[in-house]
């Protein structure tokens, strides 16, 4: 059995919020001028990450299925004169890089994952396997437009960041236990977000052979 303790948790459900509203709401979380070229996902993930205060020794695990859907859409629409800025910001790990670069925060280990129905399991496994004393698990999605029509973008906009440690500590908020077990199941990123956002307990299979027990204090 592998176990990590949730020391800090930030969730942000942007739900039906327009990108301009998100930018206005979160611009105070970033250095002046930094948000001008940031994506919605960059703002949300970066805003959540800033509150768990990443340090250079932390491992950073980032989970997003579709990543920078709007930057991808914009980049594709910029052809035949492709935008260098949108090319940079459309890469998979961009949301985390936008905020970490804005704050000039180096980090040793950075694991950007993608995935589908097992993404929560894979992100938790990456967090559990990291030898770092603290792992920051973050993730999110942004709602796409025409990519969504093709099933290539999320239909929701949300982000979260959790500071996880091996030791429980006095102020821990909850515990994540992943153990080997017979059976099968799945847990996507949005479902993990909903559990974290609502502080809901969970005890179920999240992948073939893997059971998650999420408990809260």
């Amino acid at each position, binding site marked *: 059995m592998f176990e990590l303790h949730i020391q800090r948790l930030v969730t942000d459900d942007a739900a039906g919020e327009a990108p301009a509203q998100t930018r206005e709401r979160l611009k105070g979380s970033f250095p002046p001028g930094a948000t001008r070229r940031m994506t919605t996902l960059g703002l949300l993930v970066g805003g959540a990450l800033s509150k768990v205060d990443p340090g250079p020794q932390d491992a950073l695990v980032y989970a997003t299925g579709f990543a920078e859907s709007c930057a991808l859409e914009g980049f594709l629409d910029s052809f035949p004169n492709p935008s260098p800025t949108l090319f940079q910001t459309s*890469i*998979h790990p961009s949301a985390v890089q936008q905020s970490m670069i804005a704050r000039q925060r180096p980090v040793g280990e950075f694991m950007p994952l993608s995935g589908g129905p097992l993404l929560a399991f894979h992100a938790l*496994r990456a967090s559990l396997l990291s030898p770092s004393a603290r792992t920051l698990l973050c993730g999110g999605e942004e709602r796409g437009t025409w990519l969504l029509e093709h099933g290539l973008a999320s239909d929701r906009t949300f982000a979260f960041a959790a500071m996880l440690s091996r030791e429980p500590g006095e102020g821990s908020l909850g515990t994540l236990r992943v153990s080997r077990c017979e059976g099968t199941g799945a847990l996507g990123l949005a479902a993990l977000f909903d559990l974290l956002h609502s502080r809901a307990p969970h005890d179920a299979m999240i992948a073939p052979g893997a059971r998650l027990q999420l408990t809260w204090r």
Partner: protein
Amino acid sequence: MADSASPVRIAACGCITPFGDARETHAALLGGACALRAVPVLGREGGDPVPLALMPGRSLDETAPPAWLPALRRLHASVPGGPWGSPGRPVFVTGSNFGVGGLYALRRTGDARFAVWGAPPTCTEELRLELGWGPDVSILSHACVSAHLGLLQAARAIESGLAEEALVFSFDFLSPFVAGGFHALKILNSEMPAPYRERAAGAIGLGDGAGFVVLSRGRGDWALSGLSLYNEMHHFTSNRADGSGFAACLEGVREAARGRSVWFKGHGTGTLDAGRMEIAAASLAFPGAPITGWKGGLGHTLGSCGIVELAVAIESMRQGRAPGTVGAGGAPMAPSVADGSFGTGAFDGVVCASNAFGGAHAAFLLSHV
């Protein structure tokens, strides 16, 4: 940051490039061959000619299903073991672009058949079904260090006892999306790349590439150790000018390489500042190590480069000779840059390094068990 646990072994490793498999690619690079050709940056839609290395017979323009799929099937046919994607035998798929060429084609043509290959989760699911993998297929995508992340995750899964063996499968195939993006950044231009050589302006080439590694606890003649990562988070497309990011990453490999005589397979895309900084850091961390890079012949195979070049490095050690730095002319940036091929008999390890957007650095030590 480097993992200090005991080395995991490479039970099998292979690659495909425009030259062929690992053995054929190694032979071509030893002969100084270059797979890069001037191709219009937007394929059939034209644009400036840029150096691209495409699989034989493949156009830059995407098809549905992708024209690169048969190449991946052939590569996968050489993967031993399995059943992959089952508990105890996870798959780690790594890449930078997956089927993003499908997105470009979808937007340009409106043909919905391109859609399913267009995003990492959907593309990987198609691949999983195509190659007969079970459900445990992770996806790691961190631009040009992606393959290193897959190797690190696979190694940890084995060391922790979660996996008996693990498959890391990596691929990147070019498209107008990718070529257009690098061309917009002006580092993909009409010039051929000349890694680790002084010239007036830097230039890169891009290449198709794919590879796999089967990692095991107790099977295989080669070991991976000192897997190291460092992320500067300084700038999206450039590194800290003092080269500290390169040094921080290689520091993680030094302990694993202590007491060994190593050569250095660098990232070496053909950009000038990064080339100079990489040479300086490698020379400091591994004094006397010859430095070589192969992207002048293969092009930069992006997210797959860490495994494609690992396969060539293994072939070099097997054959006893490593290709020198391949690429267009110019004076080497340092005497340690291997101009021509060199014997590997005097060495008992090779440090393999890759870099990526965001000042991301990754490296590991490959050695004989």
